[in-house]
């Protein structure tokens, strides 16, 4: 095992040394044909010179014998072309907009000298259609960023570059970022100056920095060539700003006052006394960026610094549910019930003097520094570093974290990211051979720790937050708030414990024929938990992604124009993670309240019942990945472009102990595209493309599954001398005193004896009380296939007005193989394989079918206005969402619970979480120039989308809450449409030629629409079997149509258990689910869209 790992590394090293001799390529291209205006014949040997503020120096090429020229390796920007040749009049054409990764065609006719006149300056705009590629998506440039209100600050207060993706059609926000074309955000490739900033462990975008550092972003949703790999989603390619020969820069500030921010409706919950509401208090960011020459025409710099601050106020109040008169003394306990309002919610009243507020402060200090060095006219070198140290602090917890020294539940989370890039670009052979090579290092440090300064490894003595275990209470018969918190004495009698309340037994009363607990101030029950004690789960991690990329582009002529490109990239991922549970473990109460077990505890057995607890576990899994590609862009007769490429990838994942854990080989991705410009002027294209994409597996899997986590637990009795224990222990009752968790809860006399002589499943258990959890390293199917998806894109685009294009695309994507962990024996043994094949052949194939049609109109900024409008119809169906589970938020790429057990699989097919049938995105901006120095801008944004599908979730016997699809996926109907209109208004005053000051106001959700964005999809917190149709049932149609209760009667009414008008749901042991098992909050709102907010900005540009 180790030998093969070393062999592989040695191969890598050799290859890296050899390949360091080869370089390659450039990004954007201007191409075209130069003809004689008089004869129409091609003109060879014309000197074509490109200049641009974005370009250091000039780019010069010469037309070939066919009159063709090609300026490659250009940065994004606005270019001017100058053409010179003896016997022809000099020619100049300005305002050629070139976006990142785009090819624009500019055909030019030269006038012979014989014609009188001077230099010909063409005023008409050149075409903007990208005739060189089949990529779908959009470029976001500075005009868009400056004129459109679309980026809200993230949780750190940073208006980060990642949000630029949101404006592209077929992009939708998900839990961890933005999903492209039906895929999820961890499946994307995030590139900053050519360096991948994907989180090595989880695949999400790891970097953040403000858009003020961004020159341009290319949002590629599909149809991309072989040079892009390691992604089954899309590509977000961001280029940061660079210095030029003139000093330019800006200073800015933005402020979003909480007082002008709306408040969303209160989210009601009939299961808990706690009502928590958060609102923005303030968001402030400011900064400066400047670029210029260090040595004119030779060495340039760009630097920027941007602190941002975000403060959120969270308020928790306690409320008491109102009970009817029968609950009081003298009433009929059988009729004791809550009082309900007209909407069916339990009436409640806030308990006076129980409101507490706290601020959560997040700070980020983003920075960038870049040097660009022009070695000579054909070679340049750039070095950049960009990062954003971020920290977030919450001062205290609303639940008392008792007996953890002076700690009051405060937390500190930090996340520091740095991206370092060294890049060389060069041209040889009259720029027919282009070389692009880069070295990149993306690094993340993050931690989640308590704020009392205690660290992982603190003594487990209860004196610190890191040294005290957390205890989770979840008794079904509710604990009351007063069991944990001291309330004002007069309020207790008035609200939580009214007259007639029996403190010893709690009023457990039948309600509506079922045994629902009628408690005025519940802290637990109905799935609610209450946690006290130490910090809980603590992590400290350092992640690295070290990359080397090199490509060679060769321009040649053979039956047309070719751009050959070959490239090689190598990635090394490292995930150094230290994990611990404060105090060494987390205790969790059983629903009955009679026992406490080690819910989480790292450690292992060295013999039956002989446990060794690990206070922390540290693991450093790694991965090596190699990619190589060859592609050709062949322009045939200046009419058709054929793009063909092949990409090869391999990835080897190594476990924390350095042994090979998983090997993904021979990933061959063909990419073929055809583009036809029927105008032959670069003003149109019809195109089609086929691609195969392979996933780069994030290495969380190498930590959690390939290294193996070992845990163990004991079950201990709350009361001393429980019959199931050997006795002699003092009992374990941390509700009375949290210190018991470390003291008498550890008495072996409290431990349950699990050897039941009459139970064949436990009688031969070598351990009497210890339960080992985790079977070490997870087995990998020897025939494991890498995860991949295929994509077909067809589309067309036509320039209808200057700088304005209409287009339509159709995109189809589907999964080939998916990597997931599975268990054929219901959670005893697991393996990693492909659902539907190999060892996973008894599981259904993982499917995710995406079909989308997009119609769009894009108008680049010119003549004082811009616009970008798109409508997308899409369908996303299947049983596999991607690398995270939206239903529970689980982000364990390739080892999510989706396919873990056969019993989890029924009802999984249907509309997936990101399915939005309709999505409209409209962005427009107009500039009004009042005087030569005074101007106004107005930007408007509309985003509207239809709602997400809803589900009926139940609790799985083994896997717990929300893992069972009680009815087929999507049966619960859909969320409503969501609309948002943003506006931007600004005034700018030009003080001097280069000095402009601008004031702006951005209004987000200006009409304060408050659509419901999420509802409680938990039908029941009780264990339930999926309902699988066996025969027609009169209720089934109602339930499947998403109608809410009472139309959909899914449970047995005990008063009429034989009623046919119900959809019988059963618990795993065959009992009928009853209304008592239903979640009273089912389908009630749990989230609303962000309310109205206003951001004021000031910017001085020089």
């Amino acid at each position: 095992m180790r030998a093969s790992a070393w062999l592989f590394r040695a191969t890598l090293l050799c290859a890296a040394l050899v390949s360091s001799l080869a370089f390659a390529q450039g990004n954007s291209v201007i191409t075209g044909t130069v003809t004689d205006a008089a004869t129409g014949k091609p003109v060879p040997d014309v000197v074509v010179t490109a200049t641009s503020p974005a370009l250091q120096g000039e780019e010069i090429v010469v037309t070939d014998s066919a009159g063709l020229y090609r300026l490659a390796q250009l940065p994004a920007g606005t270019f001017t072309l100058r053409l010179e040749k003896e016997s022809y009049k000099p020619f100049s054409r300005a305002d050629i907009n070139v976006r990142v990764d785009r090819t624009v065609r500019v055909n030019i006719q030269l006038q012979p000298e014989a014609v009188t006149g001077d230099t010909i300056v063409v005023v008409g705009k050149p075409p903007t259609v990208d005739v060189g590629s089949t990529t779908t998506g959009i470029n976001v440039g500075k005009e868009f960023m400056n004129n459109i209100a679309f980026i809200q600050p993230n949780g750190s207060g940073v208006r980060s570059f990642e949000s630029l993706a949101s404006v592209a059609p077929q992009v939708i926000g998900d839990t961890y970022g933005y999903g492209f074309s039906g895929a999820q955000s961890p499946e994307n490739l995030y590139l900053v100056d050519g360096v991948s900033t994907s989180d090595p462990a989880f695949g999400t975008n790891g970097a953040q920095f403000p858009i003020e550092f961004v020159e341009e972003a290319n949002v590629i949703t599909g149809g991309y060539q072989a040079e892009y790999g390691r992604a089954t989603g899309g590509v977000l390619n961001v280029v940061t700003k660079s210095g030029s020969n003139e000093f330019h820069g800006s200073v800015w500030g933005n402020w979003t006052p909480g007082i002008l921010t709306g408040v969303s409706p209160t989210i009601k919950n009939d299961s808990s006394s706690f009502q928590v509401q958060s609102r923005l208090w303030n968001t402030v960011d400011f900064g400066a960026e400047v670029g210029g020459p260090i040595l004119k025409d030779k060495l340039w710099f760009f630097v920027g610094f941007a602190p941002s601050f975000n403060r959120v106020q969270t308020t928790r109040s306690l409320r008491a549910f109102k009970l009817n008169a029968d609950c009081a003394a003298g009433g009929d306990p059988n009729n004791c019930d809550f009082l309900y309002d007209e909407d069916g919610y339990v009436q409640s009243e806030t308990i006076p003097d129980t409101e507490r507020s706290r601020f959560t402060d997040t700070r980020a200090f983003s920075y960038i520094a870049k040097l660009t060095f022009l070695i000579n006219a054909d070679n340049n070198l750039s070095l950049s570093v960009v990062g954003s140290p971020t920290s977030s602090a919450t001062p205290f917890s609303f639940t008392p974290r008792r007996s953890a020294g002076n700690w009051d539940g405060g937390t500190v989370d930090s996340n520091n990211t740095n991206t370092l890039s060294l890049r060389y670009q060069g041209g040889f052979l009259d720029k027919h051979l282009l070389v692009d090579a880069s070295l990149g290092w993306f690094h993340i440090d993050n931690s989640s720790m308590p704020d009392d300064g205690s660290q992982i490894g603190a003594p487990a003595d209860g004196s610190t937050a890191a040294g005290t275990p957390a205890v989770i209470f979840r008794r079904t018969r509710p604990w009351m708030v007063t069991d944990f918190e001291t309330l004002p004495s007069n309020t207790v009698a008035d609200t939580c414990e009214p007259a007639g309340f029996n403190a010893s037994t709690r009023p457990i009363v039948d309600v509506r024929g079922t045994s629902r607990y009628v408690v005025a101030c519940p802290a637990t029950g109905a799935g609610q938990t209450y946690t006290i004690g130490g910090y809980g789960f603590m992590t400290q991690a350092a992640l690295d992604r070290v990359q080397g990329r090199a490509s060679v582009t060769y321009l040649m002529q053979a039956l047309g124009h070719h751009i050959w490109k070959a490239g090689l990239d190598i990635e090394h991922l490292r995930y150094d993670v230290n994990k611990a549970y404060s105090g060494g473990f987390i205790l969790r109460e059983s629903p009955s309240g009679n026992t406490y077990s080690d819910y989480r505890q790292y450690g292992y057995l060295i013999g039956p019942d002989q446990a060794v607890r690990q206070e922390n576990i540290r693991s450093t899994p790694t991965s090596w990945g190699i990619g190589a590609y060859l592609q050709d862009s062949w322009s045939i007769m200046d009419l058709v472009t054929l793009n063909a490429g092949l990409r090869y990838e391999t990835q080897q994942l190594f476990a924390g102990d350095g042994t090979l854990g998983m090997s993904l080989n021979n990933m061959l991705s063909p990419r073929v595209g055809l583009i036809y410009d029927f105008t032959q002027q670069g003003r149109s294209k019809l195109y089609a493309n086929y691609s195969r994409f392979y996933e780069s597996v994030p290495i969380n899997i190498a930590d959690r599954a390939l290294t193996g986590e070992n845990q163990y637990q004991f079950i201990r009795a709350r009361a001393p001398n429980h019959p199931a224990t050997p006795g002699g222990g003092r009992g374990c009752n941390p509700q009375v005193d949290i210190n018991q968790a470390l003291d008498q809860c550890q008495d072996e006399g409290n431990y349950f004896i699990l050897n039941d002589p009459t139970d064949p499943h436990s009688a031969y258990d070598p351990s009497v009380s210890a339960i080992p959890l985790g079977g070490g390293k997870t087995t990998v199917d020897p025939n494991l296939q890498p995860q991949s998806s295929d994509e077909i894109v067809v589309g067309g685009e036509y320039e209808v007005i200057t700088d304005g294009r209409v287009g339509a695309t159709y995109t189809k994507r589907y999964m080939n193989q998916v990597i997931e962990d599975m268990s054929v024996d219901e959670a005893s043994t697991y393996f990693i394989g492909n659902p539907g094949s190999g060892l996973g052949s008894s599981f259904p194939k993982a499917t995710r079918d995406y079909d989308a049609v997009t119609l769009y109109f894009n108008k680049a900024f010119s003549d004082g206005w811009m616009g970008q409008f798109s409508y997308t119809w899409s369908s996303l169906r299947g049983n596999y969402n991607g690398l995270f589970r939206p239903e529970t938020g689980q982000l364990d790429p390739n080892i999510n619970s989706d396919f873990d057990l056969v019993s989890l699989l029924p009802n999984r097919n249907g509309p997936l979480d990101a399915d939005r049938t309709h999505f409209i995105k409209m962005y427009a901006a107009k500039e009004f120039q009042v005087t030569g120095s005074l101007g106004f801008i107005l930007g408007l944004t509309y985003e509207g989308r239809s709602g997400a599908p809803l589900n009926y979730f139940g609790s799985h016997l083994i896997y717990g809450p929300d893992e069972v699809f009680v009815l087929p996926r999507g049966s619960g109907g859909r969320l409503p449409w969501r609309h948002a209109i943003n506006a931007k208004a600004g005034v700018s005053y030009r003080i001097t030629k280069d000095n402009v000051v601008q004031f702006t106001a951005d209004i987000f959700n200006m009409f304060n629409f408050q659509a419901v964005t999420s509802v409680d999809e938990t039908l029941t917190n009780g264990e339930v079997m999926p309902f699988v149709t066996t025969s027609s049932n009169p209720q089934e149609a109602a339930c499947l149509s998403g109608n809410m209760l009472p139309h959909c009667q899914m449970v047995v009414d005990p008063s009429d258990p034989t009623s046919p008008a119900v959809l019988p749901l059963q618990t795993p042991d065959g009992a009928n689910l009853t209304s008592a098992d239903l979640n009273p909050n089912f389908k009630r709102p749990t989230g609303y869209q962000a309310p109205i907010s206003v951001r004021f900005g000031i910017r001085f540009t020089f």
Partner: protein
Amino acid sequence: MNTLRIGFLGLAAAVAGFALSGCFASQPAPECNITQTSGGGLGLGPYHVQLTKIDGTGTCSEMKYINVGMQRSRLPPAMGTTTPVTTEFTLNLKPSPAVDMYNGLRFFADYDSANDCTKYTTDDCSECFNEGDALPDGGVAGARDNLCVLNPDPVYRVDPNDMSGTGQLGTAKLPQFPVDGVCTPTDFAGMEQNFQEEVVDLVDGGTEVFPALLVKTEWTNFEILSTAKAPGTVWRAKLKYTEGTCVANYDAFAFWPEIHCGGETQEIADDGCDPKENLNTQCFPETGGASTISADGGCDTGFILVPPRVLGSGINPEFKPKCDMDVGVCKPTVTWDELKN
């Protein structure tokens, strides 16, 4: 130009090299592992160990199967640390024969010879039968009136030098990684009990003597499959079983999990072993003791055979299990070699 040529050649060589390296790399072999028998958590049962007699006479040579519970533990960490040692594991075994004797599931005091219902309380006497009545064993009550079937009176066997029964457990060394898909534990120890003589007072005043008994299981040629198809869920060995003066040698073939099927009616047959079929809708016998099929295996639609399994028999489909009506257990029909390769 030369540099460029070298660059192209280097790139091509690198690509070819990586392609080849990819072709030759394969998935790592699984660690030596077993399915942990545990009374808590997921409640995973013991292995079903099918026995084929090689030689021996007496009752101890007539066993069709036993159960063995297993756990894998680690070596003690170095002094002052908790870092697990990964060079090898300890295999912990708990075979059923001595455990059943210790737990009172193997020996029972005999019936009262008088068979007089009137002498006993209902606690002792579960049912009385008149002549001609059907008896639980399938026979018919004879001429003796008022036949009384006494509730079993379990006899708990104890090793006087090992009152807690730790000697029922055994250990062996288990390597970290398999060789050619097989893990070979060595250095077996334990699994021996010297039960003392027990004299049991019978209900009618008599006594019954259970003589001292040496019970011992000895394992050789122990091989655990460690492949993707059977990651520690199948093993085989030679078993030398000693029970008093009776000594027998067996070929042992063990698999996990033990799922019961068949039952009195034997109507469900092979379907019950279907790894994907929902058991809840079927008729299954409820099993009683550890080594026998309950005589009154009735149908209980709500009964889950291996709690907390939700669905299916839980048997690896690779086993292609079929019901063995003889012992009422779903058994693999594939061979050792098929699971190995």
